[in-house]
């Protein structure tokens, strides 16, 4: 079977480049095209896609199609779906590979209906097995990994971040074949008015950080003196984030406290929540503090390779094969010393 591939992407918020995850998905699409010996085309969406097209000119696509204009500047379901549909109809591919960005996760699943296609998201790898294209993804919140194939074509596949080496190449001028896509008034009922960062003293979610730092509910519980110390906890955690550059995660029990009128950490929101009903971030290392490491939380650590935890309970969940190292210690004391050490080492580095 001929498996023509269309790689779909959109420009990032700057409007001038592709998001990093798009380069990863392009790498996966090119690797698959090579395995299948199949032609690959590229479709781009954005207000102005020329600089993005130039940046991937060396990928060797048979042609680069585009849908551009003010209507496609901001992520909106109706216009993005219309643009993607036009690109797919122009290319008539069997496989459509795209990055799993928030913009595409919103717009592309419904595209399957318009194209009588099938769609899968959160794909972690693409391969050719016994001459068939197979994909892997996680089921039951990262607790079971499935390898599957679909007979139907077109097949739309959205890839998760961090699952493939990003494609790199030198930019070069390239001409795009621009498609005219009218957006009717009924598709303009929604307008995107802006971006809002969570209420926070500083940005605490850093997807590219080397370290994930997770705070559990223990930070707001009574300490050895019989009192709670939420303000001290806030200071220790924020100081650590500043010194280490880590990304902040929280357990559900901690982020839920704000709705239950308990002592809370002011900068912690549901956006930080890691686990069954939270995110599953990808960082090389993870440090858990004051968190018991129960299964619903730890499923969010599936993609954290090197894990350490600080907890007063030597029998907590982390001790049962979920962390590489468990320090049975008081997190308040350890973090205080750790912050001092990191500050000291940063000062030494600056002095050099």
């Amino acid at each position, binding site marked *: 079977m001929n498996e023509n591939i269309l790689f779909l992407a959109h420009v990032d918020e700057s409007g001038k480049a592709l998001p990093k995850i798009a380069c990863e998905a392009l790498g996966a699409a090119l690797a698959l095209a090579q395995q299948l010996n199949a032609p690959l085309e590229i479709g781009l969406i954005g207000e102005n896609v020329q600089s993005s097209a130039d940046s991937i000119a060396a990928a060797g696509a048979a042609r680069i199609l585009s849908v551009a204009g003010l209507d496609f500047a901001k992520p909106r379901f109706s216009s993005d779906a219309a643009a993607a549909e036009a690109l797919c109809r122009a290319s008539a591919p069997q496989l459509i590979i795209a990055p799993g960005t*928030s913009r595409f996760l919103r717009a592309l699943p419904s595209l399957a209906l318009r194209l009588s296609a099938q769609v899968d998201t959160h794909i972690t790898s693409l391969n050719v097995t016994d001459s068939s294209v197979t994909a892997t993804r996680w089921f039951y919140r990262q607790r079971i990994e499935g390898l599957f194939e679909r007979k139907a074509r077109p097949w739309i596949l959205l890839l998760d971040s961090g699952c493939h080496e990003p494609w790199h190449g030198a930019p070069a001028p390239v001409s795009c074949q621009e498609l005219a896509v009218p957006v009717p008034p009924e598709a303009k009922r*929604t307008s995107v008015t802006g971006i809002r960062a969570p209420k926070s003293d500083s940005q605490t979610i850093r997807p590219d950080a080397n370290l994930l730092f997770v705070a559990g509910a223990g930070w707001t519980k009574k300490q050895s003196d019989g009192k709670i110390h939420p303000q001290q906890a806030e200071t220790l955690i924020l100081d650590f984030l500043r010194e280490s550059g880590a990304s902040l995660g929280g357990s559900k029990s901690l982020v839920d406290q704000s709705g239950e009128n308990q002592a809370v950490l002011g900068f912690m929101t549901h956006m930080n929540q890691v686990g069954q*009903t939270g995110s599953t971030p990808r960082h090389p290392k993870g440090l858990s503090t004051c968190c018991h490491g129960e299964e619903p939380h730890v499923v969010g650590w599936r993609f954290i390779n090197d894990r350490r935890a600080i907890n007063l309970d030597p029998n907590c969940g982390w001790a049962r094969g979920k962390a590489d190292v468990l320090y049975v210690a008081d997190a308040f004391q350890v973090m205080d010393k750790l912050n001092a050490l990191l500050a000291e080492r940063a000062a030494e580095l600056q002095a050099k």
Partner: protein
Amino acid sequence: MSGVFHIVVCAGTVPDPLQTLEPIESPAGPALKNEMLLPAILDPWAAHALYEAANLAAYHPGSRVWLASLGPKAKLQQVMMTIAQKVSFELLAVDGSASGFADAHSTAEILAAAISALPGLDRSRLLLFGGWESASRGAGVTLQLIGGRLGILDQFQGVDQITTLADGSLEILERIEGGRHQVSICAGPPAVLGWATGNLPEPRNNPQIGMANMRTIMPALQKAKPAPPAQPGLEYRSASPPKQQRHTRIVKDLAAEEVAREIADWIIKS
């Protein structure tokens, strides 16, 4: 009528997250060992959607909330015993598989047909709610496909907040990369909203709400039509739990200074 919403919350049942899940082979493809015996809960993100729906309906008198669920009748009945005590809703039950390995396309087709046939549903006032993905299939496509089948052109995913503005439009906050929200203004229903966690706490159990709900839930369960989802062209090669088992080094009786030094070395080491 402009301030009235007809909210349909799509929510499946999933195994209690504290249970161990073991995949097995069945004639219909992968399944979970002792699946029918595992205690179930309402899918957590969809449950948030239900709480948000009830909250929105409470501020807009005359609004109605339906809970549309595809799952085995026995499981639905078990889950309803708990969830019915949380908020008021009418149940739309379809008797079928709630497996995470069931195909999202078939599931969407069945639910869209059931929602289309809901008596009293005003499609022009429809807000289709659900979780932005489930804790079982985790496909992240089912709600969008249902919305597409219902012809809804305004869709939002990873929603954390909805606010009704004075002119009847809706301000919607969706999660995007980097821990931020995209703010959109939608002219009004119909719309699809796939919820993340929202901002509301889980409501306390209220037996009075439970008793009122159960008067309509039990007949809805009895009337649930069987609809086994087909899997056209979807073939699983394998389904397996992750193999990695860590050998945890437990460090006790070490001074805070020593623990801090070890962690600092570990952080700095590339």
